């Protein structure tokens, strides 16, 4: 059996950008998975929260930008509040979402959807949050 130690590479352009937007140090994560254990939305995630950081450490940002995970994170801050290394994954998730929607034409929420949401009695707070989270 052979085991290989992979050294994180955080010098890629995308990784640097994510570090800038989030101001989080992905090398602080020691993969304990407490974030995943406590996340209330993992049933909507194809990549688990601790795996998100591992993929960031390995420079595989593309997988994350195309994942369901970043759109299933509700920014509830449970992961961040329980992290023993003070990594705020909610900020990394936000940076990943922004990497997608800051590109012209990539907004996640279409305005046409709003009347239907209002019909369903959704509070303004929900709709405003949606615009802030999914539209740039």
């Amino acid at each position, binding site marked *: 059996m052979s085991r290989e130690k992979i050294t994180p590479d955080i010098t890629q352009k995308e990784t640097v950008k994510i570090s800038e937007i*989030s101001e989080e140090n992905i090398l602080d994560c020691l993969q304990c998975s407490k974030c995943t254990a406590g996340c*209330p939305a993992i049933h909507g995630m194809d990549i688990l929260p601790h795996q998100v950081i591992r993929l960031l450490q390995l420079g595989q940002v593309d997988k994350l930008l195309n994942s369901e995970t970043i759109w299933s994170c509700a920014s509830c801050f449970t992961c961040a509040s329980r992290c023993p290394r003070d990594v705020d994954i909610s*900020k990394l998730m936000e940076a990943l979402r922004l990497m997608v929607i800051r590109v012209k034409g990539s907004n996640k929420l279409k305005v046409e959807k709003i009347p239907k949401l209002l019909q369903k009695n959704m*509070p303004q*707070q*929900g709709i*405003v*949050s949606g615009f802030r989270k999914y539209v740039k």
Partner: protein
Amino acid sequence: MNYSYYPGCTLKTKARDLEESALNSAQALGVNLVEQEEWQCCGAVYPLASDEIATKLSSVRSLVAAHEKGEKLVTLCSACHQVIKRVNHDMKTKEDIRDKVNNYLQLKEDYQGESKVIHYLELLRDDIGFEALAKKVKVSLEGRKIAAYYGCLLLRPKEIMEFDDPERPTVLEDFLECLGANVINYPYKTECCGGYLSIDKEKVVQKMVNNIISSALEQGAKEIVTACPLCKYNLENSSLYNKEDISISYFTELLAEALDVDVKED
């Protein structure tokens, strides 16, 4: 005692019950909540990106207005509270944000996070005091089995919100106890309701709210109280929600009831 009061978008529309019960109760308690002039929507979510400035400006405008009046800034909606409190923390601790915001707003004096932002529950707990509040109760909620639902935004991140223990909060339970209620403890009271995910991830949200409702039901709760309009909306959309089994209301509605304060019906 005078306070600056920040309502936020939803309290003037879908969550009028929250505002009316809170303001009328405050009046009965001798507290004067004065709505800020020209307040702007806080944006409902705190901008987590370090390079976002524009989305923080509306909060700073309210913070500055409260500072100029020398009053504490009181919030009611959990989301507004989270946004304004965190932006204030940024203004206090992050030099780059403080400089950019002050350069943009061109205030008479630079704002450096001097205002104190408190949630209505903190006003009840810290300024009025639960013991004093208990003495003002006219209609006790005795025998009512009520579960407190905190959600996320009041509690986390704890270093900034400084609200309560994020894993074992007690402020809502203490509040309910002083109204005479039979407080029901259950494990899901600090779990997320899904928040804005209900915009396009209804299935994901469904499982989250079902966990919360079933947990409260299993412990024998007949009522749930919350401080957040979006939490209330999501919980009421749970397939397990049934008005006859469990009702969901704002904590201020129970306060108004206990103080025997009139609240207009819709």
